[in-house]
């Protein structure tokens, strides 16, 4: 499974939604509120065995930024 698919799967689970698209963002996705954002960060940390700093978590405001963040972490 590639990175995109894996992240989308985690997002579907965290947001309890049937579909999440690659242009999802905190702005256009009502379920992506601050609490779900936190759960998402926690799930990503576990799934990719990484530590995200609070500043990094705050920056991941849409799908492409999440991917960019993960790519910088998972080498």
């Amino acid at each position: 499974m590639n990175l995109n698919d894996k992240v989308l799967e985690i997002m579907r689970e965290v947001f309890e939604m049937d579909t999440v698209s690659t242009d999802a963002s905190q702005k256009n996705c009502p379920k992506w509120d601050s609490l779900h954002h936190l759960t998402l960060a926690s799930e990503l940390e576990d799934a990719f065995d990484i530590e995200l700093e609070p500043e990094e978590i705050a920056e991941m405001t849409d799908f492409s930024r999440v991917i960019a963040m993960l790519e910088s972490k998972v080498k």
Partner: protein
Amino acid sequence: MATFVFRNHTVEPFLGYEGMTYSGYDDISVVPHDVDRYIWLYQVPVNADVQQLAQEVESYCGKLDLVLNSADERKPFIIFSMVDLARLRLTGADTALQEAIMGFNSHVAQLSRQRSNVKWVDLEEFTSRYGTDVLINWKFYLMSQTLLNPKLASDFHIWWSRIQDQLDLKRKKCLVLDLDNTLWGGVLGEDGPDGIQLGGDYPGKAYTIWQRSLLQLTRQGVILAVCSKNNLDDVLEAWNANPAMVLKQEHFAAMRINWLDKASNLQSMAEELNIGLDSMVFVDDNPAERELIKQLLPQVEVPDFPDKPYLLMPFYRDLVERFFRAYVVTDEDRSKTEQYRANALRHAEQAHFADLESYLYSLDIELDIMPADEHNLPRIAQMTQKTNQFNLTTRRYTQDQLRQFIDQGWMIYCVNVSDRFGDSGITGTICLKPVDDLTLHIDSLLLSCRVLGKGIEEAFVKTVFNLLRLDGYRRITADYLPTAKNGQTADFYDRMGMACSTTDAEGAKHYQLSLDSVYQVNNCYNIKVK
């Protein structure tokens, strides 16, 4: 179910979002009434000033009392105990905070005894599994006020759903045990009754503690049964001759000690005990036997068995937590083993009589019929949760739902059955819902299987109909809703002389009856109405 949560931290990742409404942090100004239940989950805040913190925790008792006084007292109110997660201690001797936490927790325990809608949940049971550095994730705490580490959320969900089952009185009824290398160490057929590992030092000691723990379970209303590939005579000898044996023949409600396959044995025991396979838990050290049951009888719960005797205690704790713990244990539960034994005596007696009626006369059956009240409501709720076979509609209710029905004008009766062999306790109930001034609808009618076969169901229902007729009711409607287990009740209303108006595609039958005349009840029962 709509739930309102009082909290002082972020707890959404743990209790979830669906159907949940959360108060503001430490905000008790709003206590809604249009909810189905309340939850109180306060945690010890983070504050290095321990004295101040202790006072803060003490203040929660008063806040909780205020909320309880303005909450709807018919709705369940679940209160979590408090746990000091952060453990910030400046001096080892400063016990003010621990005392405040203990004070809050004993206040809650007291409330749960005083108010029937209050139920308390021991949060420490969950948190004690983890160390402080796992319990709190400071990063997430500082970002979003989640004191409990959000990474524990999925473990919490599993634990919490079990706790909720316990609160709803859902649990298994029967624990089926193997013998060799399960109740004792070694193989009876090879080591002999005195050679098996039981009593004395390790490993025998582990099996003794395990047997004693299982004995406690029977006092909580769990039925024990044996299913073992052994020679019956060897087992009886071990039970009688080995002085270290704690669990003996009289503790088991059913036994299958033979060389048949265990799936067939389990099925026939379920029939004998009149319980469903889905209320059985099967414990066996042999993985092949466990696999057989998993494959052939998927309804039966089959936990893995520990491979070391010293792991029997954590295994026991897990067993109880997963399958057998009940929030309230009723008196009927406590005496269940005696009741099953008394039933065996009754069956022996039955063989002496030529016809059923003279047998029934000889039993001196007494039926005490009474309306639902605060004392019998827990038992009535429990019966709606657990009764499968003689249950016309199989509707499951909690105590609180039943209490609401009574408020809405429902007539709910229960029956206590006793005879010269013993008291079976409250073993039947009928719940009638008002339709109009003259008509009642039987929403639920059920009898525990341990009193069936004596015509008690008919005597009970006829007596209730006579009472309702005196109260001015003239018409009864009723349904039979088929399930996999209640086939024996399919023609009960026909036998009661009710007219079946319609039968639909799923096999549900709808009945009606005019209460024109008084029902004659067979006088072999001594009936008292309270």
